[in-house]
């Protein structure tokens, strides 16, 4: 296990990057603590797989340093870094049995056959495939194959970290839950450093202790699931996490008050931003629909099962609110913003609020 320091890493797939937009990874500076479970969350093309491949050594960064437990590994090959990686599509060696698949990484490293046998049997128990040891690997189901991919990482006791690149994409929905909870269990029992790339917020929030949200080649926020929900640092995090995403409204500031059209919205504190054009972010969960407050016109109500999502027009802007499954939309609907859920953004970044 290792602590992984990503030290001002930039990466471009172009030979001579000049502008900022030439970089797939603009500048990432972060430490993955030993034994932590991290998720890298972001939309397609945000650089999360690039970052993962830089950690595993499949890519070498254009700039910056990578340290494992303080040791510089930037120029080392994947093999020398001792990393395990599970890919989007299960990678198995078709012609081998399940047992031989797991033994493969050890045999490549010339581990004595007695140790190989012991380790492989331990790993088979860990991933629940002991009964299939002698089956041909290619006859298994997708989730079993994905477990073999994982097992090939677990079988080496000294791996520095286990990296996952959207590993559940091809798995059936009901098996996703099973595999994810098994992963969590492995993490708790053995304390591996795990980094998990995904664009699925549910997967990220349920798997990780800390979620790293990436957008356009940069890390925009690192936090616990609760922090990402309550205090999104960037409007992107607000949009991307939550269903539906955060409402972001352009407002003008005046001390403790934000003004949108004719409406005046009371803020929990005085934002530490220049008075002027800023944005107000509020999650649909904090938009209270009722008979009092500011007038809105409801355009659509979506019943999603556990609750209803109300789409409404508020001073010419679209907003969403969440009401209970049994609540009705009043005849003359009005909304109130719960101050606890209000965040203020200047230039898309969150600003603190004073007393």
């Amino acid at each position: 296990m290792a602590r992984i320091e990503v030290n001002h890493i930039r990466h471009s797939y172009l030979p001579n990057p000049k502008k900022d937009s030439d970089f797939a990874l603009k500048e990432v500076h972060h430490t993955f603590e030993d034994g932590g479970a991290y998720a890298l969350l972001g939309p397609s093309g945000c650089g999360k797989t690039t970052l993962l491949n830089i950690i595993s050594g499949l890519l070498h960064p254009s700039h910056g340093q990578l340290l494992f437990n303080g040791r510089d590994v930037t120029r080392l090959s994947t093999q020398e870094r001792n990393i395990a990686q599970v890919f989007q599509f299960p990678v198995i060696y078709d012609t081998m049995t399940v047992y031989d698949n797991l033994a493969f990484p050890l045999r490549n490293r010339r581990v004595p056959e007695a140790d190989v046998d012991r380790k492989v049997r331990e790993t088979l128990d860990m991933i629940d495939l002991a009964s299939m040891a002698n089956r041909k690997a290619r006859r298994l189901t997708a989730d079993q194959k994905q477990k073999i991919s994982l097992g090939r990482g677990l079988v080496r006791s000294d791996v520095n970290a286990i990296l996952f690149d959207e590993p559940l994409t091809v798995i059936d929905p009901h098996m996703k839950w099973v595999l994810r909870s098994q992963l969590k269990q492995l993490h708790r029992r053995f304390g591996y450093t795990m980094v998990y790339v995904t664009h699925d917020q549910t997967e990220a929030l349920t798997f990780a202790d800390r979620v790293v949200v990436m957008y356009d080649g940069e890390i925009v926020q690192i936090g616990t699931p609760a922090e990402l929900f309550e205090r999104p640092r960037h409007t992107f995090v607000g949009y991307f996490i939550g269903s539906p995403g955060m409402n972001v409204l352009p407002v003008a500031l005046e001390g403790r008050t934000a003004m949108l059209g004719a409406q005046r919205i009371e803020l929990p504190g005085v934002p530490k931003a220049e008075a002027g054009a800023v944005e107000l972010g509020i999650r649909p969960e904090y938009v209270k629909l009722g008979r009092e407050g500011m007038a809105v016109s409801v355009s659509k109500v979506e019943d999603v099962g556990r609750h209803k999502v109300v789409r409404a027009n508020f001073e010419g802007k679209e907003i969403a609110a969440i009401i209970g499954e049994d609540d009705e939309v009043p005849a003359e609907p009005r909304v109130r913003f719960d101050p606890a859920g209000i965040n203020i953004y200047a230039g898309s970044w969150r600003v603190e609020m004073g007393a």
Partner: protein
Amino acid sequence: MEKTWNNKAWFLVLPVLVLVAFSAVIPLMTVVNYSVQDTFGNNVFFWAGTEWFEELLQSKRFWEAMARNLVFSFIILAIEVPLGIFIALNMPKKGWGVPVCLVAMALPLLIPWNVVGTIWQVFGRNDIGLLGYYVNALGFNYNYVQDPVDAWVTVIIMDIWHWTSLVVLLCYAGLVSIPDAFYQAAKIDGASRWAVFRYIQLPKMQRVLLIAVLLRFMDSFMIYTEPFVVTGGGPGNSTTFLSIDLVKMALGQFDLGPAAAMSLVYFLIILLLSWVFYTVMTNYDAER
């Protein structure tokens, strides 16, 4: 469920039946007909029974041609398959090199067979041929018109030049279908270059290799045009393969009966060997 009996369906298969009848069944039956009769011309035929078959199976000339054919097929398979895999492995996977290599590989396949023969016939001549002249100038006594070994070498090199591309293209198609993740996983597992070939590339190429071996075997066993143009089956009978012998017998000597018997035996041998190849390789596939 109630089954509908309706003989109108026969009309739907009629076109293909007629086509197959005219292109395959009727000519084949004509050959069968010739093979059991004797004729001295004037369209007068006498019943000969199995006489031609017995004669053929006892003829030294037939078995020698067959042996030459088998040796030839074996040699070109032993060279073209490994060479084809080797070239496919070393072809670029992306960039401008891909179309260049693909076109270069496809070129020999696009040339008509008799032209391939003519090219090598001239190329190998020791008076004006680029190859023949310089090989002799280097001190080797090379003359495919007189020396059986030289004739064989020429025919084999010509076949390799002509057909290795087919194996290359098939293998290449198998190789590019392997996702990058396999190579990345192999790197992470610390696999050697040989292990990557043995456990990733070879298994993924297996199906196309089966097709390549089958095609090359059948084609080489039926080879006619190129050696006919280059050596005409000589010197002596040293490059007289079954098909060349068959044409000599049927069109040169106009021995319809023996030639028909030989065609049938030849056909059955190719069918049998192809079936054996196919069964062995697919069974091997199923066992794994």
